[in-house]
């Protein structure tokens, strides 16, 4: 999956996560979360895993988490990556 431009998905509402994807040299995840100490590593792992499953190897993925569960994180990362793939640079 080739990231063409910057794209976002999700919201800052409770139980959701705002995901921003932009082109990068490698695959990197940055996490801000209301539960960073408890779940920061897990959020990063889930985002990386989702990106790799979708074949995205060159992307910066930023998460602004509001307590999203794993399936929500995966959904928002997938949507943001798909939109970034279709975005214009």
């Amino acid at each position, binding site marked *: 999956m080739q990231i063409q431009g910057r794209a976002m998905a999700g919201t800052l*509402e409770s139980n959701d996560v705002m995901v921003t994807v932009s082109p990068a040299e490698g695959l990197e995840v940055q996490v801000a979360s209301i539960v960073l100490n408890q779940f920061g590593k897990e959020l990063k792992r889930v985002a990386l895993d989702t990106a790799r499953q979708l074949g995205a190897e060159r992307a910066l993925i930023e998460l602004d988490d509001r307590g999203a*569960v*794993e399936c929500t994180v995966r959904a928002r990362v997938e949507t943001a990556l798909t939109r970034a793939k279709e975005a214009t640079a």
Partner: protein
Amino acid sequence: MRRTMMFVPGNNPGMLLNADVYGADALILDLEDAVAPGEKDAARVLVRNALRAFDYGSAEIIIRINPLGTPFIEDDIRAVVPLKPAMIMPTKVAGAEDIHAVSAMILEAERANGLPEGSVGLIPLLETAMGIENAYHIATADPRVKAIFLGAEDLSSDLQAIRSKENHEILYARGRVVMAARAAGVDCYDTPFTDVNDDEGLAQDAAFARAIGFTGKAVISPRHVPAVNEAFSPSEQDIAYAREVMAVIQEGERLGRGAVSLRGKMIDKPIVDRARRVLDAAEALGLGGYEHE
């Protein structure tokens, strides 16, 4: 038993997470009006992941899709059929040809996903004057159609009527939907009561819908689930009377009588049929139903 169908916005993770805790018999995961046009893609992915991750227990899953003629319906159907919902709810259905078109798209998706043909049911939303006028043709258009559902908000707009809490403006449509559904042998569902803070109005509206023959009612607020469930469940008095009816019928059969009466009132076939429906419902809801000695 499907008494309540609770709408759950398809792009709201919090609502999807907790949707099963309110006691609704069915959940309508909504990809249509509750989702902004620019978020349809996000909602499809979120609903897919939610259905894969969460156990909604005994709640039946219905997915409301966008109407024919929009750029969303084909992607909606491709996304939701593999999730194997009990039913898909097509919207703004105007006639049998709409059902034929949607059913053909679902069939294609079933084949592409190796699912049994006809496994996904339909509960069309009738919310236009044309849809109401064609209710029977819609209900009988395809074996997938298991129920029809009246949507009063869009219908009132289409009728150029003034929407009111008393619902006088949808009286004809309600009767027409029930009549069409019963003639077709499918279930029928009433429009939601939209004032989330009027408990008395809700109870009256649900009782009226039950009285004129609806199978159940949709709700837009979790707060409305208990009242609607109660309105569409047999009462203790209903169950007691139904048991009496069945007892006198059995006694009449034992004695070889052609006609029987209960407290001076003749018990004929329609009364027995109604008693059986009450006891079937009571059994399904764990309310006792038929007495097992």
